[in-house]
């Protein structure tokens, strides 16, 4: 099972599977059904952070240094928590400016400086190649362990036989993979969908492999975690292994490593690649901000059990870095150990693939292209199509990086344990953090400051970590470590200026950051930014605030379309040029006159977008140089940018104000409309009122006039007739004057000019007086009037005359509407709370429920009889009840219609409040 050919077939079979998956991912992307458009895939691709170092090294570090291995994962957890602030900003900038790598990003921030870009690329290559070597070393060791267990594995094959070294062939296969899936398009900022798909797949494999070995150790070798920890506790030498005391550097070392891993998570070239460049949608950051930490949690949960189990196994477990392999092997589980080997392989290859793509982009865009552009002798400017050349450079860079990695591994890889190389690389990448983070949030950071900080930090890193590493591997005399260079004690790399008590990483982190941040801040304060730098600084620091600014072309220069077209064509090839130029058509007027492209000026939008296209392929600084070569003029300076910013924010403010105003206007309009509606209604009512009044007045007038004319024109009328006619005239005149009186009353009521003289009086007494007044009329129609009073005396405050008017009106109404035969009217007085209620009920037809409020409207007459059989003309003026209600309202009372109680006709109820205490009155 563990023979060479089988393992090799499985290993290379796995790599072949990666090719298939990557090809599938690319195919899906071409069809527009992208696999990587999900936050889960995004989170899994970030998990390229977990390399072979995690896979084998975490257990090793846990075995040797207790829980400090977790710090490597706490840092990224914290960084992802801040991702919505920090990484989202970077993603947005990278998208707007077509940024392809961290070197490009930092160079773009500092005025698209070629110098800074080259510096970052150089540091990245020097710092990260050992890390790639580490992955190859991990593959070699794990292969060795797998094939030669229980014998001890040799790190690599004897000198000169690298063709037999499996890791060399793995490097070759990876080079082919990366060239195929990493350099298909020139435009590096177009995502490598196939590659990301493969990386996400690798993340799943390594997680499953680690969980498998963890579950095997915890639940099959031991019966659960409790048992495992109990057994470990029986070993006295393990007692301290889980406490902080085992962490190098103690508390300070703990914090130092936490800071280091946080910074490195953002600045490692491969992390920048997956986090920023390969990000499809910034909203994926939301879910990734907990999903990725959850992934880290899962892949680490079994690290301590495996480490303890390995330590308890003793010498059979060999080096702590290979516990994950040796534990299943010692138990004879060969299939499981093969799966673990594949897991380690996927962790290593995933890292190498992404890191190599990131580094090759940096090398071609930040180091090689600027150099080629400067070498006039090559006449590179004159060549027709350079896109092939660019791809070629990138492919050579890929091969070179992997070869360098292999070389490093083959020559000096022996001397380091896995964790050591990893952390040295972390510290190198962390040198980008000050320039990156300060640049994102502090507009004042200048190019000179960033350059000084990077150089200073890198120099201190070389002194405190890189060179001592060489010394430890025996390349340089070890006396360097103990006595310092040239015997100067305060320059000892691990105890710079005599600083003692820290582990080497915290020590190096402190000094590098002190120099790096210090130089950036101090130099920035004493240097000035160029116009372009100011523009870029504003764009970077304001990235989350102003979308408008990002889309504003910041070019003021001029060039012709023809010239621009030739430039783009040379570097990006025919298709990209066509795409760009069809997007920016000249306006129709220019097209009609058929002016040649060479004389047409390119629009600022076209120039800006051409620069972005070039930046996507060549990096920002080279794109800048090229555009400068054809465009005359300068980019906007800071003031111009700021004025754009101001205008946008002003516009926003105006918009807000306008919106507020228009809302107010709408509200006022609504009010006006409703007021208008009310006025219209009132106007209509007035017209109706006038019409009704005239009508009501005309009826008696007409009859008076008619009878008067008869009297005038027929002198020989007999006396009896004459008397009758005169009688009619008098009655109609009375009615007329009563009507006018009522109209006047109503007018006074409605205008509020009715003067009432309220005084204390007895309602019962007033009622009797009213009944007396109508008694004769009742007798005439022989209507029975029944009065039932709850009180003998009911004191109210009211105007006696008006009150009588109301009561007489109610009684008279009842009389009019009571049944013609056997008419009956009930008058009742009750006390309800603090009020007296007087109800008058008749046995007439009653008032239909839907008309009970209408009767209080002016001139409203209840229809008598049914609609089909009207019963004669209405019996009143239609003004009585409205007047009554008005008077009562003035007196603080109410008047309404109720359901009939006993007689089944209309029942009108008036209510007046009881008079206040005598005492209160006298006091007034």
């Amino acid at each position, binding site marked *: 099972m563990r023979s060479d050919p089988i393992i090799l077939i499985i290993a290379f079979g796995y790599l072949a599977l990666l090719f298939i998956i990557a090809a599938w991912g690319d195919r899906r992307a071409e069809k527009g059904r992208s696999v990587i458009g999900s936050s889960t895939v995004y989170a899994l691709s970030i998990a390229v952070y977990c390399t072979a170092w995690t896979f084998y090294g975490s257990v090793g570090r846990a075995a040797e240094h207790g829980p400090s291995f977790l710090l490597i994962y706490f840092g990224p957890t914290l960084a992802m928590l801040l991702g919505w602030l920090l990484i989202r900003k970077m993603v947005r900038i990278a998208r707007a400016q077509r940024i392809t790598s961290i070197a490009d990003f930092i160079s773009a921030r500092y005025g698209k400086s070629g110098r800074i870009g080259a510096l970052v690329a150089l540091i990245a290559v020097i710092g990260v190649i050992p890390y790639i070597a580490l992955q190859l070393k991990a593959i070699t060791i794990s292969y060795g362990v797998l094939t030669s267990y229980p014998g001890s594995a040799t790190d690599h094959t004897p000198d000169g036989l690298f063709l037999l070294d499996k890791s060399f062939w793995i490097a070759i296969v990876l080079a082919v993979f990366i060239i195929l899936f990493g350099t298909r398009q020139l435009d590096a900022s177009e995502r490598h969908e196939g590659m990301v798909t493969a990386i996400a797949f690798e993340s799943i494999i390594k997680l499953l492999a680690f969980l498998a070995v963890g579950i095997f150790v915890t639940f099959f070798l031991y019966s659960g975690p409790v048992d495992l920890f109990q057994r470990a506790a029986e070993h006295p030498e393990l007692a301290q292994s*889980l406490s902080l005391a085992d962490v190098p550097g103690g508390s300070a070392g703990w914090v130092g490593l936490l800071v280091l891993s946080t910074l490195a998570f953002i600045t490692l070239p491969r992390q920048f690649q997956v986090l920023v460049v390969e990000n499809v949608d910034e909203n994926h950051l939301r879910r990734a901000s907990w999903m990725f930490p959850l992934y880290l949690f899962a892949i680490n949960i079994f690290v301590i059990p495996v480490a303890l189990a390995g330590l308890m196994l003793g010498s059979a477990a060999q080096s702590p870095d290979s516990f994950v392999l040796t534990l299943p092997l010692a138990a004879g589980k060969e299939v499981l150990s093969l799966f673990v080997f594949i897991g380690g392989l996927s962790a290593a290859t995933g890292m190498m693939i992404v890191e190599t793509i990131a580094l090759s982009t940096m090398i071609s865009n930040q180091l090689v292209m600027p150099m080629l552009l400067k070498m006039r002798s090559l006449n590179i400017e004159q060549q027709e199509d350079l896109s092939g050349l660019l791809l070629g450079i990138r492919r050579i860079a890929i091969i070179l990086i992997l070869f360098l990695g292999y070389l490093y591994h083959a020559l000096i890889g022996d001397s380091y344990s896995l964790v050591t190389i990893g952390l040295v690389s972390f510290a190198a990448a962390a040198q980008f953090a000050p320039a990156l983070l300060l640049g994102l949030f502090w507009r004042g950071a200048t190019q000179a400051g960033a350059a000084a900080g990077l150089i200073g930090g890198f120099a201190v890193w070389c002194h405190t970590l890189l060179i001592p590493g060489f010394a430890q591997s025996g390349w340089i005399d070890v006396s360097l470590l103990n006595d310092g260079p040239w015997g100067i004690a305060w320059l000892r790399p691990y105890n710079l200026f005599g600083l003692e008590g820290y582990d080497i990483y915290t020590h190096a982190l402190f000094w590098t950051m002190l120099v790096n941040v210090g130089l950036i801040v101090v130099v920035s304060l004493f240097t000035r930014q160029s116009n372009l730098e100011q523009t870029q600084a504003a764009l970077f620091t304001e990235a989350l605030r102003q979308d408008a600014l990002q889309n504003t072309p910041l070019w003021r220069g001029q060039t012709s379309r023809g010239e621009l077209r030739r430039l783009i064509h040379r570097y990006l090839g025919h298709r990209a040029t066509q795409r760009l130029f069809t997007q920016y058509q000249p306006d129709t007027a220019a097209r009609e006159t058929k002016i040649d492209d060479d004389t047409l000026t390119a629009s600022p939008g076209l120039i800006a977008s051409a620069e972005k296209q070039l930046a996507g392929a060549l990096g920002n600084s080279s794109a800048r140089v090229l555009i400068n070569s054809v465009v005359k003029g300068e980019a906007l300076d800071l003031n111009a940018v700021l004025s754009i910013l101001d205008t946008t924010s002003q516009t926003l403010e105006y918009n807000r104000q306008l919106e507020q105003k228009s809302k107010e206007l709408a509200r006022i309009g609504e009010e006006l409309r409703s007021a208008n509606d009310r006025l219209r209604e009132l106007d209509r009512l007035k017209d109706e009122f006038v019409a009704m009044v005239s009508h009501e007045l005309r009826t008696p007038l007409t009859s008076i006039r008619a009878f008067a004319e008869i009297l005038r024109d027929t002198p020989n009328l007999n006396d009896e007739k004459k008397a009758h006619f005169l009688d009619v005239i008098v009655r109609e005149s009375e009615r007329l004057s009563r009507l006018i009186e009522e109209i006047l009353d109503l007018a006074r009521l409605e205008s509020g000019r009715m003067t009432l003289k309220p005084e204390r009086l007895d309602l019962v007494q007033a009622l009797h007086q009213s009944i007396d007044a109508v008694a004769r009329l009742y007798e005439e129609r022989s209507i029975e009037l029944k009065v039932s009073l709850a009180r003998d005396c009911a004191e109210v405050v009211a105007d006696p005359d008006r009150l009588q008017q109301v009561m007489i009106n109610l009684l008279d109404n009842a009389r009019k509407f009571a049944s013609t035969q056997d008419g009956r009217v009930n008058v009742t007085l009750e006390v309800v709370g603090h009020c007296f209620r007087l109800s008058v009920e008749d046995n007439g037809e009653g008032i239909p429920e839907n008309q009970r409020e209408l009767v209080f409207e002016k001139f409203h007459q209840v229809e008598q009889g049914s609609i089909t059989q009207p019963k004669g003309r209405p019996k009143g003026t239609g003004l009585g009840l409205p007047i009554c209600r008005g008077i009562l309202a003035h007196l603080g009372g109410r008047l309404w219609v109720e359901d009939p109680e006993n007689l089944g006709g209309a029942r009108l109820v008036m209510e007046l409040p009881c008079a206040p205490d005598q005492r209160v009155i006298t006091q007034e």
Partner: protein
Amino acid sequence: MQKRTLLSRLIPLTLLGVLFFTPPILLIFDTPASNGLSWLPLYLFAAWLILILLTALVVERSHEE
């Protein structure tokens, strides 16, 4: 009406994470259990999981664009 942004919730959460993972609090938990092994790893994993769950809760409940 004041709306809390996602950021204004994530920043305090980050500070909580820093508190969880740095020495003063760690030292409290760095005590041996009855069997002699330190509680520290258990605390670290528990604090880590709590932090992840809180983040998930905050992020998934926010609908900010």
